[in-house]
């Protein structure tokens, strides 16, 4: 019994370190998330555990969350299949992403890609940086310098 408790303790400890929660959402909730906020810069990143450049660029979103803590909101949306949610979770934990993220459970891609961004053909990684009506759409792997520059531009814009 003690052993079990000990094990449980270890497990909880591990989980506490990076309490990563992936909220599974559908199209309706996604479009709700994408609604522009007048006063806030929001960075949306569409990724998946199978997408190497997505995983590679993930640390820059952690960096954003740290550097622009109160000014920028980060919304990570995994496009992994629902049965791969644990794979996505593992990567987020490994990359020490502690804020809540999302997984979009909609595999009828053609029914929602245009609603997210008409210029987007569906390739990932895809990042949107948005403030009010201003929207920057980037359909490739980002560097920290690029992302920081774009965020700055939107933060200082009226």
């Amino acid at each position, binding site marked *: 019994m003690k052993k079990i408790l000990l094990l449980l303790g270890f497990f909880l400890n591990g989980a506490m370190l990076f309490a990563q929660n992936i909220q599974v959402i559908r199209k309706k909730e996604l479009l709700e998330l994408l609604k522009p906020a007048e006063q806030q810069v929001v960075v949306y990143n569409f990724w*998946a555990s199978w997408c190497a450049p997505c995983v590679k660029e993930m640390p820059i979103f952690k960096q954003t969350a740290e550097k622009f803590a109160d000014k920028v909101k980060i919304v990570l949306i995994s496009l992994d299949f629902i049965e791969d949610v644990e794979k996505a979770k593992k990567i987020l934990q490994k990359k020490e992403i502690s804020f809540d993220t999302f997984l979009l459970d909609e595999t009828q891609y053609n029914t929602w890609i245009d609603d997210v961004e008409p210029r987007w053909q569906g390739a990932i990684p895809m990042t949107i940086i948005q403030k009010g009506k201003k929207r920057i759409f980037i359909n490739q792997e980002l560097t920290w310098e690029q992302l920081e520059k774009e965020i700055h531009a939107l933060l200082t814009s009226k």
Partner: protein
Amino acid sequence: MNKFFISIAVMCMTCLLWSNKPISEGYKPGDKARDFTLKNIDGKMLSLATFPEATKGAIVIFTCNHCPFSKMYEDRIIALDAKYKPKGYPVVAINPNDPSRVPEDSFEKMIERAKEKGFTFPYLVDETQEIAKTYGATNTPHVFVLEKKGKDWIVRFVGAIDDNAKDASQVKERYVEEAVDNLIAGKKVKKAQVKAIGCTIKWKQS
């Protein structure tokens, strides 16, 4: 009435603002597609014009080795070729990825993968990425169904192969098959543009 005119004016302004946005490049259904001369995995150069089976058109698919979504579709691409090559619409696969960014997409690995899977169609390398750029391919896999009109190749469909990448047995809409069937029947392609999730093309970094 005044209000009506103001709203019309506002709408026009919005349209103008919209048109200032960069227009997305690449082909849309109805556009004339350029032919290409690219190296096949057998070492020979291939063009649409000299591709003997492409009598009515071609199913041009930008794809690659490494992308999980491309892999999920390999068997379905082979099936497309089996079904439509005899009808004059053979598959032509093109790998546009920069192998220095993804070693798995090198020319040698293309040859290996084609052998492993028993590809029945040409698997070309777009070394300069010029064809992918001109066509406006952004994903792998990304399909362009072309119809041959005299010496011209007209884009009739752009997009995804079907509506279920994960599970071929659960597919409800076979977009490419429907498009080619429409063309063969002499009809207008019903769904000429369809989007799907895929991998970004790995462009050369300048």
